């Protein structure tokens, strides 16, 4: 009985101490993001300017991560154009009469692929998936993706054709006004 009472008191004291530590330690979001001043002194002490003051901004790391994430995304600003570049690929059919015909047909296919990539970036992709499971085994797994868009003013930047594969680099410049209509 005496031992259990001592144990209970010890447990109560330890939980109280833990609460105090948790209250004393601020979370990252609570760190004030105010600029502070630090004093830089010459290490050997014989500088003409004995000290100089430098302003240092204290930034919350969570805010910094969020800011960099926003900058990494391709977002369309109101007063700035957004350039989107893609590389489409197309293959020449096997039964062509000449290399020129193979090139022309492969380029047409590559342009269509580039258009599709632009549409995927600008408008997004609709995805449907089905899995058929029978007797605890996957019998059939199906993923269907569809893209539908209307694209104008896309420009071909560069075309390469090698070993029957044609690659077309295409770009489109989007402005805020295109979507504000």
């Amino acid at each position, binding site marked *: 009985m005496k031992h259990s009472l001592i144990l209970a008191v010890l447990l109560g004291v330890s939980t109280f101490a833990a609460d105090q530590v948790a209250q004393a330690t601020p979370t990252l979001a609570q760190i004030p993001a105010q600029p502070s001043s630090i004093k830089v002194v010459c290490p050997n002490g014989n500088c003409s300017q004995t000290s100089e003051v430098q302003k240092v901004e204290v930034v919350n790391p969570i805010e910094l991560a969020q800011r960099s994430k926003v900058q990494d995304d391709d977002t369309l600003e109101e007063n700035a154009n957004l350039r989107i570049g893609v590389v489409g690929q*197309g293959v020449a059919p096997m039964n062509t009469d000449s290399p020129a015909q193979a090139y022309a047909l492969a380029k047409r296919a590559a342009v*269509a692929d580039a258009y*599709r990539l632009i549409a995927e970036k600008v408008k997004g992709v609709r995805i449907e998936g089905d899995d058929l499971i029978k007797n605890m085994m996957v019998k059939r*797994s199906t993923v269907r*993706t*569809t893209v539908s868009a209307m694209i104008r*003013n896309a420009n071909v930047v560069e075309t390469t054709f090698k070993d029957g594969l044609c690659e077309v680099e295409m770009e489109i410049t989007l402005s805020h006004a295109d979507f504000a209509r």
Partner: protein
Amino acid sequence: MRSRDGNHSFSRRLCAIILFSSLALNASEFLVSYRYMVKDAILYNESLFVSKSMRKCHGTPHDGLILESDGGNNLKKIISNNSDEFISYVHKLGLDLNHKETNVNYQNSSTTILTLKTTCFKVDFNDNFARISPLK
């Protein structure tokens, strides 16, 4: 009062009406649609439809394209002879894109269809070239 030789003013008016209506009979307005299909990264099918407009198209011509011709009035033939120029021009006008991709048991197949929806073009035929301009 009607003269013995006939009513000249009436016949003149009639001739003028026939002349202007023949000019305005939309002979130089064509409906063009174009579409091609790419299946598994290979060009599969291409179709071009050209027809004379039976009704007057509305709108003003924009961004014309000059195609070389031998003086004929067959627009489909002229476009076929200048297919590269026409296709790059059509891309600038804007194409509808429809892409479907299916993956069954990790085997992929895709179909992409690019379509120029039926557009009315004003066409000026000349001796050496034809100028086509979409009406918007």
